Structure formats: C-alpha cells, structure tokens
C-alpha cells in the first residue's frame, strides 16, 4: 500500500521546482483579483447609500442573477461588503476553476500523453505519487492564496468587512480553486487524453454554471447540489456560513478518493471513456489552407465569438436600470450626466466598447499567434514543402485574422443590441450600436500589424504583443482616473479612436490607422518572406 505513494515527496519538490514562478505569479495575481478592489468600491459607496440601493436593485434583475448569482441580503443587510462579495465571488470562482483545470491537466494527463510519466514510473515511484504531489501542490497554492487575500482585505480596513468574514470570503474562493482542481483530476483519469480531459472539465464547469442559472431563479435550494453554488452560498458579509466550505472540502476528499481508485486500476496512457473515432477522410472544405486554418481553430473561434456575444449581452442587460441608477448615484451622475446631449446609455456605450474591443483584440492576437506557434512546433514543415508559398501563408493568416476581428466585434455588437432591446423601453437602433462598435476596428487591425512585424522579424519574441495589449488595457481602463502623461497615452492606439456617439466620427484618423496597419503588415511580410523557419 505504502508503495503506491513512494517518492511522493520528491516528486512534489520536483513539481514545485518546475512551477514555482508560475505559482508565485498566480498566487499574487489571483489574490489581488480576489481582494484588491474592496477599498475602491467602498470609496464609491461610502457616503452614498442611495447608490448602493440602486446597485442592489440592479443586481436583483434576472439577467444579473443569471450572470453573477443571487444574494441573500435584504435591503437592510446589503452593505458594501455584501455587494463586493456578490459581484465578485461567482466570477472569481470561475477564474480559479479555469486556472486549476488547466494546471492539473497539464501536470497529470498531458505528461502521460507526452511520455514523461512513463519515464518517471520506470523509477521506484509509486503509482499514485505524481497525482498526490499535484494534490499537495494545489492545496498549498490555494491555502497561500486564501491567506494572502485575507491579509489584503484586512489591510484595506474597509468598515463592515471584519476579519472573520474576510477569511470566509477568501477561503471560499480558495476552496473553489482546490475543488475544481480535484474535479479535473477525475477527468484526467476518465478521458482518453489530455485534450478530452480538459474539454470534459470545462464542459462540466459550463454545465454547472448554467444549471445554477436555472436553480437560482427557479429553485434556489437546488444550488446546494452544485459545486459552483458552494461559493456564493456562504453568504459572506451577510450571515457568514462555513457549511458550504465544509461540504466542498468533503467533496474534494471524495473526488481525490475516486480519482485514486480510478488511477490505481487503469493502464497508464489509457482512459475509461472511449475516444470517439474520427473521420477516416478529410472533408472537402478542410483541404485548402484557409479551410485548414479555420478547422484547426474551430473550437477557439466558436468559443470566443460566444464569449464576446455574452460580454456584449452582459453590458446590454444593465442598460435598462441605468437611468434609475445614475439619478441616484452621485459619482455616476458626475461621470455620465455632464453631457446632456446624450442619454446615459449612449455615454456608457461609448466607453464600454473600449473594453469589448480589447477583448476582440485578445481573440485576434490569439488566433494570429497560431501562425508562428504552429511553425515553432514544426507542424508547418510539411506544408512548406508543398506548392504553398510563404506569401499565401502570410496573407491568408492576415486576412483570416482581419475577418475574425470584424466578426468578433459584430458578435459583441449583436449581444449588446439584443440585450438592451429586451430591457429598454426605447432601445438604441442596431445602426447606432454598430457605429459605436466598428469605429474600433482600425485599432484591432493595428494590433494585427504589430504582431505581424514580430512574426516577420522577431519570431521568437512574439510574446511582446501581450505586453502592448496589457499596456493598452491599462491606459484605456485607468487612463481617465489617473494622471498619465500625454506622451504615454499617445502610445496607445486606442486613444486615437473617437468615442462614438459622444465624439464625432473622424474619417481621417480611421483611414490613417487602417493604412498604417496595412503598411506594417507589409513590413512584417518582407521579414517573413526571407527568414528561416524557427523551431522550439
């Protein structure tokens, strides 16, 4: 029996040595994400009980409950803390779950697929040792995050958010991270490979998210049977219950036991669920370069278009309550009502498209990045040995990325349009929203241009594009609140785009940015045409 765990300690240290930097970054980022915004939120609402109540009403509308989950608070107990937890806890749980699933699968099933596990197992290493090492790693990671987040909340010293509640809030999220790690562990045993293990884990996450939408609205008690429900059911900052955490902990232990049982009796490299046989021959539409590229990115593209639609819809669904909200909230009044020529929705829309466009940009950068990532993995070698020219390779990718940029933006526009139409008495027209959305497309193209130069000239440093994206995000998001020197803001291409409808449409800037994007794509092409292919 003991032999099954032989060398667990050593493997744990080995895993830690490989992951420490990644884990450190996560621990800091996730705890900042969890506990970082409390005092900012408190500042907005501290002297504004009416605004808080408006928020309470907004968050009680069915669309918001569907997205963020319910709150057990009444008008009397809806404090800043209660609101903070309500807005954060379910969404943060999703982030924790996604990170955990990715990591656990890559450290268990993926290694098995790659053959690393086989080598490790040939030593005097127990059958369950690697899994146990990952379990310990995930437990410690989430313990550290819970402690850091509690400390962070404590330091901010927001009145009404005391130590006990802060600890509960942080533990609840840490617990979610660990819980989903253990759920992923089960799928790592069941599935026939890392890809399907990941797919099944995410499917399960999505399933429970949608299931709780239904139960939260129709039968709130049903959410007790939902792992995601165990996050917000702690009713933190309202009635503080540890019961859901106890349940989640017990469930995690059960999941570990189940995955141990499954792993002990299965052959390495095999799973319990049969891999569905694929097609013996390719469909006609896959047999061209654009067709192949789209096929390879199918899931990625569909996932992003759906996510952009949902994000648009999320923003759109709060349009209906904005009038009440803004008339009662002092800060909102200051932010939005200074321009009486436009409705509050129009003003809000002009700002929120910055965010939606940045999301579309992430999608496009991720898609175009495949051009160089596939190259590094050696998967283009055989295609380069055919009559396909580099010219075609490059420009097909550019064209696909550009089209996807436009389609992505329209997906967000459509989500926004449909949602606001269902909640507003006099909804904005599709054309008004489209104008506000498509004005950002040149900026998205500009990102394609920058990445193409990197791909053409610095294929090993394409990651730089993410730094520029984070920079643009930072400037666009916080630029107005902070004093940022103008020359810095000027480096952000998004700052040149007119905010429709409150600013005027500028053909000059729009056409200029588009031409500039095209020009740098050509520069990238010159480099791409003459460089060596790279491999990892």
């Amino acid at each position: 029996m003991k032999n099954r765990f032989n060398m667990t300690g050593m493997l744990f240290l080995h895993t830690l040595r490989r992951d420490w930097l990644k884990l450190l970054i996560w621990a800091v980022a996730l705890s900042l994400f969890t506990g970082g915004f409390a005092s900012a939120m408190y500042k907005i609402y501290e002297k504004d009980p009416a605004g808080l109540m408006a928020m309470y009403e907004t968050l009680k509308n069915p669309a918001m409950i569907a997205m963020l989950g319910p709150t057990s608070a009444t008008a009397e107990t809806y404090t800043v803390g209660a609101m903070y937890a309500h807005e954060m806890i379910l969404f943060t749980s999703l982030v924790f779950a996604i990170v955990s699933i990715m990591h656990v699968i890559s450290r268990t099933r993926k290694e098995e697929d790659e053959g690393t596990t086989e080598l490790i197992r040939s030593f005097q290493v127990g059958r369950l040792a690697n899994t146990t090492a990952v379990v310990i790693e995930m437990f410690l990671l989430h313990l550290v995050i819970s402690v850091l987040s509690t400390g962070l909340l404590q330091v901010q010293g927001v009145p009404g958010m005391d130590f006990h509640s802060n600890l509960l809030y942080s533990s609840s999220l840490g617990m979610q991270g660990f819980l989903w790690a253990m759920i992923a562990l089960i799928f790592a045993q069941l599935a026939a490979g890392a890809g399907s293990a990941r797919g099944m884990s995410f499917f399960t996450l999505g399933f429970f998210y949608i299931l709780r939408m239904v139960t939260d609205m129709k039968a709130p008690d049903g959410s007790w049977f939902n792992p995601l429900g165990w996050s917000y059911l702690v009713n933190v900052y309202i009635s503080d219950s540890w019961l859901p955490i106890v349940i989640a902990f017990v469930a995690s232990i059960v999941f570990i036991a189940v995955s141990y049982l499954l792993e002990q009796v299965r052959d390495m490299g095999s799973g319990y669920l049969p891999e569905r046989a694929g097609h013996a021959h390719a469909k006609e539409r896959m047999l061209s370069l654009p067709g192949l590229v789209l096929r390879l990115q199918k899931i990625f593209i569909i996932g992003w278009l759906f996510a952009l639609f949902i994000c648009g819809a999320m923003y759109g669904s709060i349009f209906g309550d904005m009038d009440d909200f803004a008339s009662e909230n002092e800060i909102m009044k200051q932010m939005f009502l200074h321009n009486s020529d436009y409705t509050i929705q129009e003003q809000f829309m002009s700002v929120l498209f910055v965010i939606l466009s940045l999301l579309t940009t992430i999608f496009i950068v991720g898609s175009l990045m495949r051009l160089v990532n596939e190259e590094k993995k050696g998967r283009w070698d055989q295609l380069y040995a055919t009559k396909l020219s580099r010219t075609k390779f490059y420009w097909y990718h550019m064209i696909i990325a550009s089209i996807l940029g436009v389609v992505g933006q329209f997906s967000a526009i459509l989500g926004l349009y449909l949602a606001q139409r269902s909640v507003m008495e006099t909804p904005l027209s599709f054309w008004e929203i489209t104008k506000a959305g498509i004005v950002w497309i040149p900026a998205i193209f500009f990102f394609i241009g920058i990445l193409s130069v990197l791909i053409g000239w610095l294929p090993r440093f394409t990651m730089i594009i993410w730094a520029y994206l984070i920079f643009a995000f930072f400037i666009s998001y916080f630029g107005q609140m902070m004093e940022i020197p103008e020359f810095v803001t000027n480096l952000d291409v998004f700052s040149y785009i007119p905010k429709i409808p409150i600013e005027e449409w500028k053909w000059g800037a729009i056409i200029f940015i588009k031409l500039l994007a095209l020009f740098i794509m050509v520069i990238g092409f010159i480099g791409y045409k003459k460089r060596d292919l790279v491999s990892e």
Partner: protein
Amino acid sequence: MVIAEIKGLQKKYKSTPALKNVTMKLKKGEVLGFIGPNGAGKSTTIRILLGIIKSSGGTAKIFGKDVWKDSIEIHKRLAYVPGDVNLWPNLTGGEIIDVFMRLQGTKNDARRDELIQKFQLDPKKKARTYSKGNRQKVALIAAFASDAELYIFDEPTSGLDPLMEAVFQEQVENLKNQGKSILLSSHILSEVERLCDRVAIIRQGEVIETGTLDELRHLTQYQYKVTTRDVPIGLKQVRGVHDLVINGKEAVFQADSDQIESILEAIIPYHVTKLESVPPTLEALFMRHYTGK
C-alpha cells in the same frame, strides 16, 4: 539528367557554422543515400533544399531552379517526409493525409487507401494518440501516394518496426522502378546499402565522401580470411596488410584494395586451400570515416 545539384552549401547560425561545405548531386532515377551521425547537418541540408531555411553560402538547385527563390516551382514536383513528424493533435490521421495530399497537389484515393492498408494505419484515430511510428506512417502514406518526381525522406524509418520498414523499402523500390529520384537520409545503413545507388557521407557539416558503394569500397579495405597448409608468417612483412591475426593455419586480415596483387603473391607460397574475401559493409566504411579506424 541532374535533378539536384548542391555546391559548397553553407549555413551559419550567428557565428557557429552548421554546414561548412555540402556538395553532392542527385541524378534522375537514382536513389541517393545521405548518411551521417546526429548533428552532422543532414536535416539542415534538407531544410535548405526545401527553402524552409536560407543558406548562407554556396548554391543548391533542384530541377535546375534555385531552392530559395523558386521553391514553389520545385515543391510542385516533390514530396517530403520530415524526420520529426509533427501533426495536429485534434485531426485524425486520415484527415491529415488528405490535407497533405491535396496541398501537394495529388488526388489518388485508390493509391492512398492501398497504402493505408499496407502500412496498417488506423486513419480514424486522432493524431495525438499516434506513436512516433504511426506519425511517420501518416507522412509516408501521403508522400508515397503523391505523384512527384523527387522524394525527400529524412530518416523516415526511425520509428517503424521491421515489418513496416520492409513495406517502406518495397515502396521505395517501386518508385525507383518508375524512374523517380529519391534523396534518402538515414541512420539505418543496411537500408541505405540495399536501396541506394550512390551514397554521400556527411560529417560535421561537410560532405566528405560521395560515390557508389563500389567506389567507396575501392578506397578502403577488404577483409580476407585464408586457410593455408603452412603457417603464413610472411604476411607480417607485406605492405597493405592490417590487423593480421594468425591462428594456426588460418589468417584473418584487412587488405588495402590497391595492394591486393602483391598480397596474393605473398600468400601463394604457403599453399592456399581456402580463400574468402568480404567487401566492407557500409557500417565499416562509416566507422572508418568517423572514428578513423
């Protein structure tokens, strides 16, 4: 007719040279074996021939065209199997074969299905489940089913079992009979010995020997085994005899191929009753070039 002509090819990475001087020729209808140890520059040479990387000096032409500038024209007429076959994990083997064939420009479903059967590949499985050998089979099936004039194989059989290797050899012979030209880079010397008309040996980025097997052998030593009635003591003094071992009336030695005449004259007086001569294996040639023995 010359299919591929490579002269003084060089490749430098930063300042370290990967290829110093690669010179070789592939004629029409010929199988050229390209042998050398790991890291000698076989794959680098092939990648230059395919226009995937750019040479830093020398010339390389296929079908009389420059491999970098006219790569597309060249690629229309060739098929390639890389040493490391990397496939898209979420596509099936069958799908990938179809993609490769279409992009190469051939449509021949009957031939494809015949090869799938011969190589015993399950085309319905996702590529992520394939072993190295199965990934190689995917690339090999696509290449053999393609209609090309030049086939380039970069260590194509390193993951295949002996049965599959036999199928590979059969297919290469098949191509040869059709008058196709083949560049075969390989570690497996018996395979090269069996299939190749000519051989190029590369060491540390330099082709140090090219020629037919016979020509190469001529430069080196044959092994002789003689049985005589008297102990052939005199062999010790003969020029061109190496590694002589005399065991009673039996003697085994290596003989320089240009000294055969005088050696034979020297053993005749000992009354030869049996004489065997063994041409050096490619392995022996190879070892001689690499270890100096």
